[in-house]
């Protein structure tokens, strides 16, 4: 296994060679397979990748939610200097909610149906802060107002089912941010919502980051969402990071052939219409049998550019350039420059 070069200094979260494996009847599912990336304080980092690429499992591993399952978690998840993989459960419990918070795709399943939305937000506050019920209630109303719930005093006593999908997602965000965590993991927070509501929620996330300084790990499969919301991006494929870059760099100068493929396959309303899309052929590999070389090799149109069939035999390392940019591919920098397809 080639050694990975050093990342930039002082990240809030630093994930190194993270592996998550699920023993199943069919064999070992390698859901996360040597993932490395960094999140700076206050940064919004997008995690993109196709279904099954390990985005949600990564979020669950960071929060320690896989601990009491059969999953095997190895590697390093450094949060503010502490390693979350080995931290005692009591410490994780203290961090969860206070410094690490999460918003899920489906807010209905994450909100308790029998408690009012307001009491759930204030309870989330009281778990980590010694304050009176009244003070917590005030704080909750303030948060509900901040995330755009109209008439927050009155709606405090409403139940989740009385809210629309977009409003529930706002409540989830209020609950996650009520203790001003340093890292918010938002797993597809807008995927179940209509685009007009998605636009409202994404704007809210950006505003709240500016206001509270929370870093956000935004899991999505939508590159449009990333372009409009994130500062930097981690592109995942088969449980690995194949590319990390600042958002402008990623879209203007993508380096990994998989990223090229993803960008090329999207129909876009902001560009002239083409008659044909350019799909990536084939499908992602089975996580029971990830190819020993580059995981993308069976679908990659560029593996012949690399001599001695290294793409088949040798897994490329994630190489950092020291400026926040990392790529996992055997092509040389010069090759990537000349081979990269030009945007249509």
């Amino acid at each position, binding site marked *: 296994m080639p050694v990975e070069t050093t990342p930039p200094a002082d990240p809030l979260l630093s994930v190194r060679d993270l592996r998550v494996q699920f023993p199943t009847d069919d064999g070992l599912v390698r859901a996360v397979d040597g993932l490395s990336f960094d999140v700076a304080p206050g940064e919004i980092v997008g995690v993109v990748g196709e279904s099954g690429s390990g985005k949600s499992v990564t979020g669950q591993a960071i929060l320690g939610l896989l601990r009491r399952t059969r999953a095997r978690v190895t590697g390093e998840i450094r949060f503010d200097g502490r390693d979350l993989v080995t931290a005692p459960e009591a410490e994780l419990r203290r961090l969860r909610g206070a410094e690490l918070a999460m918003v899920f795709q489906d807010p209905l399943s994450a909100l308790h149906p029998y408690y009012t939305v307001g009491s759930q937000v204030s309870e989330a506050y009281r778990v980590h802060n010694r304050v009176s019920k009244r003070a917590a209630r005030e704080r909750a109303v303030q948060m509900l107002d901040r995330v755009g719930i109209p008439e927050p005093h009155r709606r405090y006593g409403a139940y989740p089912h009385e809210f629309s999908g977009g409003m529930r997602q706002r409540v989830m965000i209020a609950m996650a941010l009520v203790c001003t965590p340093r890292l918010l993991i938002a797993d597809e927070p807008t995927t179940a919502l209509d685009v007009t509501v998605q636009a409202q929620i994404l*704007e809210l996330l950006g505003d709240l980051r500016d206001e509270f300084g929370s870093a956000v790990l935004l899991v999505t499969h939508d590159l449009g969402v990333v372009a409009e919301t994130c500062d930097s991006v981690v592109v995942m494929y088969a449980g690995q990071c194949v590319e990390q870059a600042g958002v402008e760099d990623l879209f203007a100068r993508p380096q990994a052939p998989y990223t090229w493929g993803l960008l090329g396959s999207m129909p876009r309303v*902001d560009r002239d219409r083409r*008659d044909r899309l350019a799909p990536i052929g084939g499908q992602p590999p089975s996580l029971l049998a990830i190819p020993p070389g580059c995981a993308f090799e069976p679908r990659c149109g560029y593996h012949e550019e690399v001599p001695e069939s290294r793409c088949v035999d040798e897994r490329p390392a994630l190489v950092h350039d020291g400026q926040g940019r990392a790529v996992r591919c055997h092509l040389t920098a010069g090759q990537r420059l000349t081979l990269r397809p030009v945007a249509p």
Partner: protein
Amino acid sequence: MTDLLTVSDLHKDFGGVRAVDGVSFTVRAGETLGLVGESGCGKSTTARLVTRLLEPTSGSVRFDGHEISRYPERKLRPLRRDLQIVFQDPIASLNPRHTAGTILAAPFRIQGVRPPGGLRAAVAELMARVGLNPEHYNRYPHEFSGGQRQRLGIARALALRPKLVVCDEPVSALDASVQAQVVNLLADLRDEYGLSYLFVAHDMAVVRHLSDRVAVMYLGRIVELADRDTLYAAPRHPYTRALLSAVPVPDPALRGRRERVLLRGDPPAAGEAAVGCRFRGRCPRYRDDLDDTQRERCATEDPQLSSDPSGAVACHFPGH
């Protein structure tokens, strides 16, 4: 071009809920009509009404010269050969206990069609045509990937070379890279067989890619219908404008520089009859641009879809 499908003033009530509330449009022979709108606006109900999986509460559906809105199943069966549907969720629409071969042979059996080279060969050809390996004839749906299952659903719909295929979100459940494969397949099949599509989706970019004309639905009604290029370049209904401006664009350089029409509130659920324009509560134009007399009109008079040479729009004060 002749009209293959003509829908007039179509209504469907579920209890008191007006899921489809006066929809009219045509699909011409060889044309793809896109149908977009937010969740719950009545797209799937429309798709099911025109394929007569549902019976309309009122209104007319004319397909290929037949008024089918009240046809009993006996009279629909021969027409189903020419009128097919592809669903969003391939796994729910394919019988899990049937192999790919059985699934694809069913249309021939049901219609009593005997392909010249034999059924098995016809099915193998069909599989090859949609990019499935004919050797997977004996596989079950769960043994295929999501994209492959959707190809199976498309192959089944195309088995008897229909005239019109209603596609209800056929690529919404697929990942970007696979979605592009299926979108290309749909375009190729259309060109090869001269198919017409009613293409239902909520993804504005995919709809633009495939459609000749596009209809925008809001709360059970069509609020705008125009040529693809006209609709995307110069949307006239305030809702169409908001919808288009909310589509996230994968270009960080445009961040903050695009004109954004942010809608407040959520799409309301379909419901009872209302007075005035049903978009009024969220309409940015009503909120920001109109004077009191104009607002009064929006509040009291339900705007009807009215056509002019550049398309049709249901708004008292549309843009140009």
